[in-house]
Structure formats: C-alpha cells, structure tokens
C-alpha cells in the first residue's frame, strides 16, 4: 500500500506552464499508474495504457476505485472508470472531482 501513500502525499500536480505535456500529467498520473501496476500485477503500464486491454476486468477495476478513494478522497463510479480507462484520463477525472 506504500505506493498509494506516496501518490497522496504528492498532492495535486502543478498545472502551470512548466507542467509536463498532456492533460494534467504529473504526480496523479504516476500514482494511478502505480495502482494499475499493483492490481494488474504487471509493470507494463504507462499513462495511456487501457486498463481493460491490459487484461483488467470489473472486479479488478473496483480495486483501483477503492485505492483512488483511499489515496485521493474521491469516490468515482464504475461508469467513470469505463469512460476513463487509462491512468492519464483517470487522473483527470480525479482532479476534476477534487
């Protein structure tokens, strides 16, 4: 679980001009990548990997949503996840909800 704590501690990504390219990339995306890696038991995850193409299913997806709630204090629905199945897009949803 240490991965999640780190991500939470990193807090919101800076959205200023110096921020890396891509939709609000940064600490949150990294945090979500780490969550995907943990529940999928695979290192082969990047910011734009699709959870379901990596073999994730609905049961494992709920584990990500649980980890998101614990780390970021944001409760997303299963439909939210279906609409944003990559770490980058899920991090965006998390940021929007905060």
């Amino acid at each position: 679980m240490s991965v999640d704590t780190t991500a939470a501690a990193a807090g919101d990504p800076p959205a200023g001009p110096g921020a890396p390219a891509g939709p609000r990339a940064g600490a949150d995306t990294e945090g979500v990548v780490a969550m995907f890696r943990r529940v999928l038991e695979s290192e082969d995850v990047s910011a734009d990997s699709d959870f379901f193409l990596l073999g994730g299913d609905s049961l494992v997806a709920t584990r990500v949503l649980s980890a998101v709630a614990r780390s970021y204090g944001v409760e997303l629905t299963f439909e939210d996840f279906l609409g944003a199945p990559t770490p980058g897009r899920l991090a965006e949803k998390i940021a929007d909800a905060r």
Partner: protein
Amino acid sequence: MVVGAGFAGLTAATELAAAGIDVTVLEARDRVGGRARGLQVSDGGWVDAGAAYLGDRHTELHSLMAGLDLKATPTAMRGASRFALGSEETTRDGRFPPLNAVALGDLFERLDELTATVRPDAPWLTPGAGELDALTAEAWAERHLAHPDARLFFPLFLGEMMAADPARVSMLHVAFYLRSGGGLRYLNAFEGGAQQDRIDGGAHQVCERLAARLGDGVRLGEPVHAVHQDDDGVTVRGPKGEYRADVAVMALPPLPADAVDHRPEPPARRTGDRTARGCAVKVHLVYPAPVWRDHGLSGWSVNARGPLLSTVDDSPAGSGVGVLTGFVTGAEAHRFAALDPGEQRSAAVGQAARLFPMLPEPVGFHVTDWVNETYSQGCYAALFGPGDWVRHGPGLTAPHLRVHWAGTETSTEFFGLMEGAVRSGRRVAAEVLARR
C-alpha cells in the same frame, strides 16, 4: 485397491495400472464421476449437473482430457447481465453489479491482501493462522465490512464461488481457497479465468472414459464401510464382501472418509464437529432456444433473493436448445432442497421469467440436489470450519500405514476443483509407487 471413482480415484487407478499394478476401484454409487455428473437435455445435448468449468491453469485436467480425446468448449458470455439486488430488476453491460463500486473494491482489496498472506502449501503455517482460522467468514465481514453493499455482496460472492454459508466457514479457509485457486480475479473470471471453458459433452465423460479403460477393475454399488489393516495387508469391506490388498487409497471427500471404520484408527481424524458441507443445488431450465441472446442478454444474473442466486447460459454448443443453469447455494440451498418438486419448479421458473421476461415456458426442468448426498457431503466441496485447518490440515495427506489419502480436499493446489482432484490422484499414485 482404490476406494472412490471420482476424478481423484480414477486418476490414481489409471496411473497405478499404467505402472503395471493390479488395481481394483470400489465405488459406492451405481455410476462413476462422484461430484461430476452428466444430464442429457436434448438429442446429443448434455449439461453438467455437478462440476462444469475449467480454465487454462488447470493443466493436469487439460492433459488428462487430451489423452481421452475430450475438448474444452468456451463459456463465451456476450451481452448484458440482469441483477435483482434491490427492489427491482435491472440490466447492465458486463458482469458488474449495480452496487457501490468503491465499497466492493474495498472488499476485494481486503480479500486480496488476506489471500496474499496465506501459505499456499501449508495454510496452517500462515502468519496469524490460529486467529484467522477461529473466525467465521460472517464474523470477519461484521468486523471489516462497513458498507451495506459490501455486506450484501460478500455472501453472494462466497455462495457463487464456494457454495459456502458465511456463518459456517472459517475465514482462513476462504483465504486459502482463493489462494489455492489462483487468486480472486482468476477464480471469479469466465474468460481468462477458472470458468473459461466447459468440457464438451460434459465433465463426467472424463471419469467415464477413464473407467472404461480400467474395465472390470471398477466395481459399482460397493459402499466401503470398513478398512482394517494388519502386518501383511489391508482388508476392505463392503456389503458384497471383502477385498484384500497391499495398499488402499481412500479417494473420498473428508466427511465420507471419516465415516469409514478404520483399524487401527488413524492418529488424527480428517474432520471435526465444525467441518461443514458446501451446499449447492443446480437447476437446469431448458428452453427451445437461447432466446435471451436475441435481446442482447448473456443469461448471467445475480440475485439477492433465491432460489436462483445466479444464473448462467450453459446451452450445449450445437444442440439448438437454450439452457439456463441456476445456482442455489449456501443457506438458500437447504431451504430449496426442502421444498416439494412442484414448489421448486414454480419458484425457479417464476424467478427466471421475472429476470428474463422474454422466456417461454421451459421444455425441460431439472433439479440436482447435492445437499443430501451421503457419498459427497460437501458440494462443491467440504468447507473447513473454524479450527479445522489448524487441527486437521497438517495430517491431510499423511499416509496411515498402508492407507493413503486422495481427493480434491487433500490438494493444496486448486482445492475443491476437478484440477485439485486430479492432482491429488497423481500425488497419491506416486506415493504408492514409492513404497515399492
């Protein structure tokens, strides 16, 4: 001498015969297969009244099937699911229930964390085994699950996966079972998981073909009630007489194994007062065609109220007919098993029609009650109750002089499944061969 003609006993007997040993198999029932049993639903269409599903990790079963010319057929599940978890039925894409996803995620995270701590080869050596084994799954849920949706879902999940009543099963057993079967996700999944395939023509065919090869070495209608050993051999007694052998393999579930009179007595029993039975009734509803598919439905449903706690499309490939299998498990299985046949039919057919309103009257209806089977006493498998793993676990496979033990409940790999039974049969055959 092998006692029990299920997957375990027949695998063991086949391996022993191949090594040149003269083997006899004594089977209590008038059929082989034990907890696997075929049911014919149409011309050439068979379904599984007992064990049905397997996955790619079930490698020993797959290689056994290959040697018997049996094929796996996918359980391909396409379309939306039906759920009756609240006041009304709902339809959703995929298999995810309309419940709070974070609450279910919390449940699965906790279960996964617990599963990871289990010593798969020796669950009684798991850190904190004593405490975890003392706890029922119900007590664990009360302690750890706060959200009502998690509390609602947990018993349904255990019912579907283990045919377990949470009040009767040890939490160490639950965690062990999940670990042994390849983890939460593998056990739960159809595609890519433990329910990926069925055996074309029925799982019972594995046992029938193994038995056919053993020929008249397999004797049916021989319930063994006593196994007495002396310095020179073993005497095995059934109602038709007695048999003498060098070694006996008891390939039975643990409760029937403990019902046999052993002399001398084994140093430890295999079950205790709290060893429970998995409880399942399978209901097969047969329709002229799988009409739900035309409406974009997969046939899968999950229901908070019985009798059918879940349904799945088990239509045999190429048969034309549509078969919905209903699972009645845990405490609900006891209630359903006590109904008379007319009540069972109207309850099951009525529930199916509410879930799938397009259904016509069924052309066939079958109930297979595993709850009251003397020669199984645990279906899908025995459920270790509080204290059982710590007390009985270490001795489960230890030979008792000339008596060796097999059966899916002696396998720490794929416990409770056909794969576990096959692996136990191979393990015990190797043990017997090593005696010589």
